[in-house]
């Protein structure tokens, strides 16, 4: 490998995609374009059930793009077009006539910047539940409480549930967003750099939370922090210029990667 990467030097997307348990979602041969610019090249990836899968790679390599394709958030971008297949169990997520509402209900998302609704803390969590179900007042109360507890924020907000969600601190807002996602009990939670706007203490709280969540949910997390990926995830995918260069168990990736490129990236000797 030379220092300047030409097209030819980029390793193609890997097909070495072994996981131990059952896969919640299969991504198969995904190509994606923004207008004429291709952002993903033939990406395949299994997402292991009840595990944390982390996606790492340099900025602009397509991690967010891949993540947003899984719950079809990219449909909101008019110039975005893709080929390939994503399946979750029986449902084909990438189908033309797929039911976006139930896909997004089953695959929740937490964004890079905390984005609670400009509603009260209570309503932030309750809104999604009321969207899909008809709970009684008591049921709703208990779901809100349970979700906030699971998101490790209950003790901080229990006495001000009717304050505006946006009045919380950044870290609290992010945990509120997580509570909002888990309130509707999705199968999968996608997290796009959930800690990038947070201080170390809030980050630690969220990491702990992720480890807690993995008991009930499947988590996919995009992160720029190698140490975070190493701490929280079971599987790691390394992406580079739109290719899934390497995918493996996290310990394997961080101790003995197959690819030279991966090694250089995780040791910080890159670019």
């Amino acid at each position: 490998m030379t220092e300047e990467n030409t097209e030819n030097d980029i390793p193609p997307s890997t097909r070495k995609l072994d996981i131990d348990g059952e896969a919640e979602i299969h991504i198969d041969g995904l190509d994606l374009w923004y207008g004429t610019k291709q952002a993903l090249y033939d990406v395949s990836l299994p997402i292991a059930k009840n595990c944390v899968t982390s996606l790492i790679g340099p900025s602009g390599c397509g991690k967010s793009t891949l993540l947003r394709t899984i719950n079809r958030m990219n449909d909101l971008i008019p110039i975005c077009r893709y080929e390939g297949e994503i399946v979750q169990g029986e449902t084909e997520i990438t189908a033309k006539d797929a039911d976006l509402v139930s896909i997004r209900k089953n695959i929740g998302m937490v964004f890079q910047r905390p984005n609670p609704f400009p509603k009260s803390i209570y309503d932030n969590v309750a809104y999604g539940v009321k969207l899909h179900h008809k709970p009684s007042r008591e049921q709703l109360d208990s779901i809100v409480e349970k979700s906030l507890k699971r998101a490790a924020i209950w003790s901080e907000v229990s006495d001000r549930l009717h304050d505006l969600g946006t009045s919380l601190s950044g870290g609290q807002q992010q945990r509120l967003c997580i509570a909002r996602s888990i309130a509707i009990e999705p199968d999968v939670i996608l997290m796009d750099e959930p800690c990038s706007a947070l201080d170390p203490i809030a980050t630690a709280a969220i990491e702990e939370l992720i480890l807690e969540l993995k008991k009930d949910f499947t988590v996919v997390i995009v992160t720029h922090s190698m140490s975070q990926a190493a701490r929280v995830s079971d599987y790691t995918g390394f992406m580079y210029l739109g290719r899934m260069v390497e995918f493996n168990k996290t310990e394997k990736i961080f101790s003995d990667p197959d690819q030279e490129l991966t090694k250089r990236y995780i040791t910080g000797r890159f670019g």
Partner: protein
Amino acid sequence: MKEIDKLPVRNRKGREFIEKVGSGGLALTSIIGLVFLLILVYQIAKPTIIDGEEGEIVAATEFLPISDYILKWDNPSVDEDGNLISEPIILQLAWDDENGSYEHEIEITVIPQRNVKENIQLNENGVDTNEVTVGKKTKFYIYSTLSTPVSVHQISGPTPAANETGYPQVNTFVIQSDVSTVFSNGISIEEAIAVMSWSFLMVMILVYVFPNEKIIQSISSTSKNHQIIRWLSLAPFLFFILNEITVIRFFIVLNCFIGLRMLANLSEGIFRLSNQMMPLNDKILLKHSIVNRDGLMLWARLFFLVSTFFIPLSVHIPFLTERYQDIFQPYSSGIRSAFYGTFWVMGIAMFMAIPISIGAAIYLEEYAKPTRLTKLIQALITNLAGVPSIVFGLFGLAIFVREGGFGLGFGPSIFAAGLTMGVMAMPIIVLAAQEALRSVPRSIRESAYGIGCTRWQVTKDHVLPSAMPGMMTGTILAMSRIVGEAAPLLVVGAFGAVLFDPEPFAALTDGNINFTVIPIQIYAWTAEPGHEWHAMAAAASIALIAVMISMNSIAIILREYYRRRLNS
């Protein structure tokens, strides 16, 4: 089985239906806007380009009816010496009231000097004269204080524009008598009640904003009865059962209703606080204990502001309460009919423009795919916002005033004027609303889609509330821009001298369609020779500015309300 799946599931059929209907409806509003545009272009092009020589453009004045209550002979049938050369001019006035039907004939003598005139007074006792002398080319008036319509026929003499029978029938006219009573026994206490309801609302607003301890204490003694006050607040509506609804009565009743509601919710709050042994002097605590405080304040402020304009009508400030009298009585004239004209024109304009424009903005911003067609519509709207107002006047003339072609034939009426002004405001509102929608952060949309909202739910629950302050401001600014427009209404056919309160829907009910608005009134008065009229025009300008300021205040009140709802 997940916990959440045990809950009953919301039916999605309705949701999907709404989604379809919603986007269909929004697309429709967008298309309506486009159709307006195409018609405009066609209507302008047709007589000159498409029809070529054969086409004729009918001037607006040709089909303006001669004013219903002014009889005008431009060429009196007199010779140079002033001798009558045709049969005498005789008008027949006829009306019915409780006491029977009446008929009077009036002979009119036309003399060569100009500006000589006698006006005819009409009241329950009949007319005050059977013969009047009127100068050549001079207007004279028939005033009526009857509350029943009077029909006027010319039964002899030359006619200004005869129909086939030679005897044009001048339209029926009526001037409502100026007696305002609350109960049919004639006790006139409406003015007092109007002022009282207005003051009551003002006091309630002040109490809400500055909760004075003494007042709170005094309310707290009766606060057990908050439920009674709540029921009592419906009582003003009984008033409508007893009386016919007029603008002033409408405001009396709603002012009282909102004021009592505020009092009831305040008492309830105080009641709850004192039950929990909380101190009453904590203002923040008090504010939070009032149910729906923001909503009540919104309505109270709006009604207070708007009814402020109608209070002078009931306390009789001549400049505001009188109509245009005649050319020789400037200081007893007022802007009443112009004010009502403005009020109705704006009302109709808003009623038509706001739903269409906001629908179009939502569709273009949230639903439409960026195809060539939407780009074209976008470009058209942007350009249309800059089109001079006189062009919109011509558009209104072609579509709303004239009959035939695409013309809807409402005549030079308030209805046509309101629709014209609405069309003029539409592009401005669309652009403002689009701007407001665009400024809603993407993160709000993403978070809503992320938990499985449909497009319509995202729009309705998240985007619209966030965009609402901006939309409101844009809308009201558009409205306060068009409230001062005179040019399009000159084309549509507003009059300078209107002696009646306008009837907003006269065009649909065959009533008296004449109307004026404040800017036209100012224009007409500046054109009069006497300097008194110029002073009146200046005063009317101040009144116009007051209307604009109050509209902007409404914008501010609404914006603050929505801001608070988002941020508090």
